[in-house]
């Protein structure tokens, strides 16, 4: 625990601090880039892009070794992975455009075939003399062990660059995400914007390879965006919330992973993001599960209250225990079931409003107004006071209600 706190406060050594900051920047970049992907409903394209990096890593290693290099230079491996990720992305687009296969089939085909090819290359590398300690398997699930200062700088710098580009392009990308037709009509090149979006996703994937690994980087792109969507309906807020959530997951995950053995960085970061998602799914206002349950219960209570009051106006006995409990709690009836003065007044109002609605339906031909009658909406919300006064004039003087 002390180790975790140290890591969280950047006190666990220079390298661990660098990794934590790099992970936070990567998380921020992934959350924001992923938001546009999610809004464009193309979340899983990133899965194909991520898996398509593997053959590039393998090929880059083979090329670097055959040129006499050491083969483990992160920049070289990332360049190779970017090239093959681009090839994978282009193939997904080409298959979906040029053939009648749908995009999801194209995604699945590209991700499995590129990954298969990558695995073949990995076994080739393992049989090379120089390849045994290559550690390329680390790119599958990410690893911070043995990360060099320059690796951490690549991650941090790349993450910052992605965030800067997203800041610059946020308006056209928002427009294209919500209404491609309109965006095209006002002169935005939607194809180019889409390409920019995918390039950003590719950049995040490549930068995240070392830290999170290619199987799980897609989680860092999707989960923060989906989580942020629970909290707000405004796109700018979704964007920055997703960035912050991703950064928090990256930072805390990297710290946890640095402070305990057997804690691989990628899965930890993803699980923290998933925990934040589960929390939001439960607790978010309006869209969350708890909010939905509460809203449903409030609605039930209103229906019971109204049914109870209607029964009071007609002096009918109430048997439903839920109705009785709600009326008692609000002091509308006494413990023995007899209406209190307050209850009688409320019942009289409901009875009067029912009569007003009847008149309203006779007077108004406009069903957009009278159609709003659902028994729960107060008539004052639908009609103006002078209209209600007019209904009252047609109703005649008040009459006593039973009970």
């Amino acid at each position, binding site marked *: 625990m002390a180790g975790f706190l140290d890591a969280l406060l950047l006190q666990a050594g220079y390298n661990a601090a660098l990794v934590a900051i790099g992970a936070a920047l990567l998380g921020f970049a992934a959350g924001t880039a992923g938001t546009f992907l*999610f809004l464009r*409903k*193309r*979340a*899983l394209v*990133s*899965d194909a892009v991520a898996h398509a990096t593997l053959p590039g890593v393998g090929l880059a290693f083979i090329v670097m070794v055959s040129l006499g290099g050491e083969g483990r230079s992160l920049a070289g491996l990332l360049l190779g992975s970017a090239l093959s990720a681009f090839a994978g992305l282009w193939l997904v687009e080409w*298959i979906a455009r*040029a*053939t*009648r*296969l*749908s995009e*999801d*089939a194209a*995604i*699945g*085909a590209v*991700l*499995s*075939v*590129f*990954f*298969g*090819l*990558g*695995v*073949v290359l*990995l*076994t*080739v590398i*393992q*049989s090379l003399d120089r390849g045994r300690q290559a550690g390329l398997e680390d790119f*599958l*699930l990410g690893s911070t062990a043995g990360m060099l200062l320059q690796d951490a700088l690549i991650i941090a710098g790349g993450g910052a660059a992605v965030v800067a580009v997203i800041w610059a392009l946020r308006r056209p990308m928002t427009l294209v995400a919500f209404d491609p037709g309109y965006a095209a009509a006002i002169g935005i090149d939607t194809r180019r914007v889409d390409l920019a979006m995918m390039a950003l996703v590719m950049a995040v994937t490549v930068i995240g390879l070392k830290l999170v690994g290619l*199987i*799980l980087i*897609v*989680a860092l792109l*999707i*989960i923060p*965006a*989906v989580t942020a*969507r*629970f909290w707000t309906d405004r796109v700018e807020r979704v964007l920055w919330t997703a960035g912050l959530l991703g950064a928090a997951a990256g930072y805390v995950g990297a710290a946890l992973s640095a402070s305990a053995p*057997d*804690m*691989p960085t*990628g*899965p*930890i970061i*993803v*699980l923290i*993001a*998933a925990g934040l*998602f589960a929390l939001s*799914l439960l607790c978010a206002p309006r*869209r969350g*599960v708890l909010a*939905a349950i509460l809203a449903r219960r409030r609605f039930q209570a209103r229906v019971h209250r109204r049914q109870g009051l209607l029964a009071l106006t007609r002096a009918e006995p109430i048997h439903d225990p839920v109705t009785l409990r709600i009326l008692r709690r609000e002091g509308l009836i006494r413990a023995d079931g007899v209406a209190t003065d307050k209850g009688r007044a409320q019942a009289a109002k409901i009875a009067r409003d029912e009569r007003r609605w009847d008149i309203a339906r006779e007077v108004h031909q406009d069903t957009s107004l009278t159609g709003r009658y659902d028994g729960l909406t107060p008539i004052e919300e639908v009609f103006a006071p002078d209209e209600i006064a007019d209904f009252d004039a047609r109703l005649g003087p008040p009459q006593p209600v039973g009970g």
Partner: protein
Amino acid sequence: MGAEFVQFSLTPILIGTLAAIACALPGNFLILRRQALIGDAISHVVLPGIVVAFLLTGTVAALPMLLGAGAAALLAVVLIEAIRRVGRIEPGAAMGVVFTALFAGGVLLLEQSDTSRVHLDVEHALMGNLETLIWLRAGEGWASLADPVALAHLPPELPRMAVAAALIAALTVIFWRPLKLSTFDEGFARAIGLPVSAIGLGLVITAAVAAVAAFDAVGSIIVIAMFICPPAAARLMTNSLARQVWLSVGFATLSAVLGYVLAGYGPLWLGYANAVSAAGMIATVSGVILGVACLIGPHRRRVGVAAGA
């Protein structure tokens, strides 16, 4: 093609072929229903399933693994559906959230628990161990096929995979008409009283059975590739569903056999000493087949799109 082939190559090729066919059959319908990525999701969540099963039972016996993987697949499908409905999230994103989170959980559990005694790790889960499913007892070559003692020592994956493939083939034949109707015209199928949602769920469960059975022997790469590539290639070759399914079985078989042979013998022909990953090569071959179909398949275009468009 003597005793050595029977000992070291026959059973892996057979297992790979059966696994490929078992996955390609439901894949045909998943592709047509635009649910291709369900296969991807299922094959990722198999990992946490087997890890939990291992932690509960302490063994790597087949039955608890299969049950654990099946339960995880079912849990994933339920979670995806729940998140999609409750959170009003588009299905792709819901899928992405669920399978990555479960996979991450599986990896973490695996790293935290002591699995050094048993053969259970992430790479095995991804790439399978097709090459190790050899039939050592077949010392007499092809004659061993008639030798009951040798037959008793077949790798257990072979009969298991055969049963799974036969089951899936039988289900495909039995439910052919309802599957076809509900895939192509859901409204009509509903109108004539078919339980459309039950058929959809049944298809996903069948896919999960195929994934779980195949995963054990060949790893997730082949599972995902075979769900998608052979049916997708077949879809570009024909407009008839029956022909598409037969073609996909053919492509799956071709990928498995050619992929295994290329992986096992290809490097030797080129003068290298070591074989490469068979699972990876099978996936690669299926991708090449799909690529060829995308370029020259007679029905590769959408209906109504001109050839030059």
